[in-house]
């Protein structure tokens, strides 16, 4: 059985270590907050200007002046702090955030990521994604292994406009986990989702990986 979105988020949450400052992207990465392992205390950064993001509010706690980067209403914690956008990205670009978990449309075997634009089709913008992949110490991408047509999203080179070059350290897909250590250029298959065979992953992957 390949992993579900929630399984992928749960696996990504295993990358969080006690004391980490963490930025979670929109989509599957947001679900990671529901799976933070017991005994691991992390502080979530919201790029619109908050450290120590709390859970969603009860209906009577909603404050329009308190939202996350996905524009969802949230709450504060006792540890929370607020700051302006320049300071928020000083934190991000300056290497003070320990890990970023973000969604992806394509990843290349060299660790490039594309996740912000489909030319002629989708005009949304990169938001803070380019700053995150440029500055955060460790970047973990979470995505489906293939697109709806069954084509590999893990490629020799990205076909979509890049968000960043040579910046992804780990890729978690519905089929498994692919990682590379510091200084390693190629990704290694480090885990398979339960019931997934290596041959299936090979057949669905265009990127050149270290297999086992």
């Amino acid at each position: 059985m390949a992993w579900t979105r929630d399984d992928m988020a749960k696996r990504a949450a295993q990358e969080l270590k006690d004391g980490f400052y963490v930025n979670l992207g929109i989509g599957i990465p947001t679900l990671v907050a529901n799976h933070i392992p017991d005994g691991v205390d992390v502080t979530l950064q919201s790029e619109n200007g908050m450290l120590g993001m709390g859970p969603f509010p009860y209906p009577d706690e909603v404050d329009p002046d308190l939202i996350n980067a996905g524009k969802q209403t949230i709450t504060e914690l006792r540890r929370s702090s607020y700051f302006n956008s320049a300071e928020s990205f000083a934190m991000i670009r300056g290497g003070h955030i320990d890990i970023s978990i973000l969604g992806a449309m394509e990843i290349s075997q060299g660790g490039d990521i594309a996740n912000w634009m489909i030319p002629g089709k989708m005009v949304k913008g990169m938001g803070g994604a380019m700053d995150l992949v440029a500055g955060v110490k460790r970047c973990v991408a979470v995505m489906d292994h293939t697109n709806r047509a069954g084509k590999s999203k893990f490629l020799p080179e990205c076909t979509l406009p890049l968000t960043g070059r040579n910046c992804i350290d780990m890729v978690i897909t519905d089929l498994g986990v692919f990682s590379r250590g510091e200084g390693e250029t190629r990704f290694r298959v480090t885990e398979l989702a339960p019931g997934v065979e290596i041959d299936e992953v090979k057949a669905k992957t265009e990127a050149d990986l270290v297999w086992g």
Partner: protein
Amino acid sequence: MSSKVFKTAAEALQGLTFDSMTVMSGGFGLCGIPENLIAALRDSGAQNITAISNNAGVDGFGLGLLLETRQIKKMISSYVGENKEFERQFLAGELDLEFNPQGTLAERIRAGGAGIPGFYTKTGVGTVIAEGKPTMEFDGEEYIMETGLKADVSLVKAWRGDTQGNLQFKKTARNFNPMMATAGKVTVVEVDELVEVGSFDPNYIHTPGIYVQRIIEAKCEKRIENMTTRDPGLGRGERGSA
């Protein structure tokens, strides 16, 4: 004695608006946007505006108001995904758009207000953002040059302000507002609450009044883009409270 305090948004923009002007407008999504000043800018009739704002509002609210009336010629933003009219005008070639990474946008505004004409960043290296920009190597790593941004008028939303223009922002409604306050030739602020000078502890002023030329008190709708709540049936404080 001259006063920074104006009665209405329309009066506060009097004499400041003109065709082909550059305007900065604070906010992240619909949080911390100067709602009343945006509406007054629309009513001023200024055309061919270049708008610098992280987002473009939503259809019919925030900067979406000025897109509907075709008063905006160009947007400099990091993310415009919440506005269908924007997407339509852009794909039809009716609107210029310059995407900036969010941190680059914030830093360009900060630099503009701080008298720094350019700076180097690693954000966007190897992407379309780097095309045509000078690069420089520092410690073996490549960086691209970005320039500071300024505006003819900055429209800012703060929580509380005093009659000297000293400002405090509320929670995540702060976002781009403090930098934009520094980068406008003229900065106009709307606040939820206008207080007499001396009401604030000087230790807790976020933006000093030197950056603020005009200020109004105005009621904001504060529309919520993505209302998300948790089940009231769950016990309070059952999730982490530290």
